C-alpha cells in the first residue's frame, strides 16, 4: 500500500522575506487571519535583490486563485442581468461574458507593491509606494482594492493609506466603496470613473454591485452617529461628488445597470414611510453647530447626498418611459425600468424628496 504522504510533492522552499510576502498577500486575499499578517506589516525587512522561482510560482498561484475567489464572493456568482451593447444578458459573470475576456492580468506593479509592503513599515514610510495610474491593469487595481479593504480598519496603517499621495487615493474602486474614508482629501480629489465603464474594468463593477450596496448601506446607517458638523459636511460633499461623477460616467457610457446598487441601497434605507431626517442628522451635536443658518443647512443637506442623487435616477426613469420599441437604447431603458420597479423607485424617490424638502425651510411649490 502506498503512503499518501510520500506521493504529495515536497513543500516549496522560500526565504523568510518571501514567506512573509506570501503571508501578507494571503491576508489581503482573506485567506489567513489578520493576527498572523499584521505583525509583519509593522516590521522592516531587508529587501532581497530578487525573488526565487518558488516564491514567484506561489505568488502567481495565490493571485490567480485568491483574486478570482474574492470577486466571486463579492457578487460575481449572482445571477444578474446586465447590458452587452444593445442586448441584455443574464447569468453569473462567467455566463454573461466569454471566459477568455475575464482573464486577470497583473503588471509588475503588483509585485513591486507586495515587495514594498513586506520590506517597509507602511504606516511610517514616506512617501508611500507609488505607481502611475495609467500603467495599472484591472488585476493590479483589484489587488490594491483588496489590500485597502483588509487594512482600512488598522489604525495607523489605514490613515497612511488614505493619504493624498497613495495609490489607494487614486483607486476609483476604493473611493466608490469607501468614500467616507477619503473625506479628508476633499471632493476635488475624487477620481473619474470613465475608465471603469469600459471592458474589462466594467465587469468588476457589474460583479461588485452587492458589495457596493452593502458599503453604501453601512455609510447611510452610520451617519446618524456623526456628531461633528464639519465631519458631516466634508463626508457629505465627498459622497455627493463620488455619486455624481459615477452616475454621470454611467450615463455617458449608456450603462444604467451599473447604478443598480444606489437604487438597492436607497430602497433599504427608505423602506419605512415614517423615516425622518434625524436618521441621518440626529447625531449632530448642538454645541458644535455652526452659528450661521446657511452653514447648518448646507451640512444637513450634504448628509442627504444619496437621497439628492435619486433625482437624477428619477429623470432616467422618466426618459426611459418615453423610449419606444424601435428607438435606440430600448433594451437599456427596459432594464432600467425593471430595476426601478424592483426597488420601488417611485415610492423611494417620493420619500427622499419629502426628507430633502425638510432642509429647505423656504420651499414654496404651486399645487
Amino acid at each position, binding site marked *: 500500500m502506498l503512503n499518501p504522504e510520500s506521493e504529495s510533492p515536497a513543500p516549496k522552499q522560500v526565504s523568510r522575506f518571501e514567506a512573509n510576502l506570501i503571508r501578507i498577500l494571503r491576508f489581503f486575499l482573506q485567506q489567513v487571519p489578520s493576527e498572523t499578517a499584521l505583525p509583519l506589516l509593522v516590521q522592516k525587512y531587508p529587501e532581497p535583490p530578487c525573488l526565487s522561482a518558488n516564491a514567484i510560482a506561489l505568488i502567481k498561484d495565490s493571485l490567480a486563485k485568491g483574486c478570482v475567489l474574492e470577486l466571486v464572493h463579492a457578487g460575481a456568482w449572482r445571477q444578474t442581468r446586465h447590458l452587452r451593447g444593445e442586448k441584455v444578458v443574464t447569468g453569473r459573470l462567467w455566463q454573461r461574458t466569454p471566459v477568455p475576456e475575464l482573464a486577470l492580468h497583473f503588471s509588475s506593479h503588483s509585485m513591486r507593491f507586495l515587495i514594498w509592503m513586506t520590506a517597509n513599515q507602511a504606516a511610517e514610510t514616506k512617501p508611500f509606494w507609488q505607481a502611475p495610474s495609467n500603467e495599472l491593469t484591472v488585476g493590479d487595481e483589484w489587488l490594491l482594492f483588496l489590500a485597502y479593504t483588509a487594512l482600512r480598519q488598522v489604525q495607523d496603517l489605514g490613515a497612511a493609506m488614505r493619504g493624498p499621495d497613495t495609490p489607494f487615493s487614486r483607486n476609483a474602486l476604493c473611493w466608490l466603496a469607501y468614500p467616507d474614508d477619503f473625506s479628508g482629501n476633499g471632493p476635488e480629489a475624487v477620481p473619474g470613473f470613465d475608465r471603469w465603464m469600459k471592458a474589462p474594468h466594467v465587469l468588476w463593477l457589474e460583479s461588485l454591485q452587492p458589495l457596493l450596496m452593502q458599503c453604501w448601506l453601512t455609510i447611510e446607517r452610520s451617519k446618524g452617529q456623526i456628531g461633528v458638523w464639519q465631519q458631516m459636511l466634508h463626508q457629505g460633499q465627498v459622497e455627493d461628488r463620488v455619486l455624481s461623477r459615477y452616475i454621470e460616467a454611467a450615463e455617458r457610457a449608456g450603462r444604467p445597470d451599473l447604478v443598480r446598487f444606489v437604487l438597492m441601497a436607497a430602497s433599504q434605507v427608505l423602506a419605512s414611510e415614517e423615516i425622518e431626517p434625524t436618521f441621518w442628522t440626529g447625531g449632530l451635536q448642538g454645541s458644535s453647530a455652526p*452659528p*450661521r*443658518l*446657511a452653514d447648518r*443647512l448646507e451640512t444637513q443637506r450634504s448628509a442627504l447626498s444619496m437621497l439628492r442623487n435619486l433625482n437624477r435616477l428619477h429623470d432616467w426613469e422618466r426618459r426611459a418611459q418615453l423610449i419606444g420599441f424601435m428607438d435606440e437604447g430600448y433594451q437599456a431603458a427596459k432594464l432600467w425600468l425593471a430595476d426601478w420597479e424592483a426597488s420601488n423607485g417611485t415610492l423611494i424617490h417620493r420619500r427622499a424628496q419629502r426628507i430633502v424638502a425638510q432642509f*429647505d*425651510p*423656504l*420651499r*414654496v*411649490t*404651486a*399645487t
Partner: protein
Amino acid sequence: MSRAYRVRQTIRVQDCLTRDVETGDEITTALEFLDILPPAETQALLEQELRAQGYEEVEGQLERREGDIRIRVDPRTAQVTITIQGNETVVVEGVKEERTVLPVTESQRRALRETLRQELQEQLQEQTHAVERKVSAELEAKLGDLTAELDAVVTRVTAEALKQKAAQIGTIREIVEDTEMGTLTIKLDV
C-alpha cells in the same frame, strides 16, 4: 535666633480686546411653478406680482428690504435669496493676578499677559459666534412670515396664469375665487 521670610508679591495685568464683528447669513430657495404658461409669460406675471408687493429692480433682480433683511428674487430663474447683515462691536476685558516670590521678572509679567491675552481671544471668539447666532436667529424668526408671503405670491401667479390659459382656450363665463378655501373655479365656453 533668625527666621527666614519669603516675601510674595502679586503681579496684576489687565488687557482689553475690541473687534468689529460684521456678519451675515443667507438662505436661498427656488420658487416652483406649474407649467401652465410658457416660462417667459410666467416670469412676467411673477415680476408684476412682486412689483405689486413693493419689490424694486436692482441689478436686474427684484429686491425688497426690511430693516437688515434683504429679499432678492431673480424672476428668470425664480431663485429667492434672503440675506441678513449685522454688525456689532464686541469688547472683552479682563484682569489676571498671580502671587509670586520676589523678585518679579519681566518674563513672568509677559507670560501672565500672554495667558490673559489667550483667554480674552477665546472670549472674543465666543462672543463673535454669539453675534453670528443672534443675526441668524433674526433671520430664522423672519422665515415664517417670508414663507407665507412667497407662498401667497406663487398662489396669485398660478391663479393669474390659470385665468390667462383659460382665456386662451375659450371664453370665460364665470370666475369664482374663494380665498378662504384657496380654490379658484373658472367656467368657460369652448
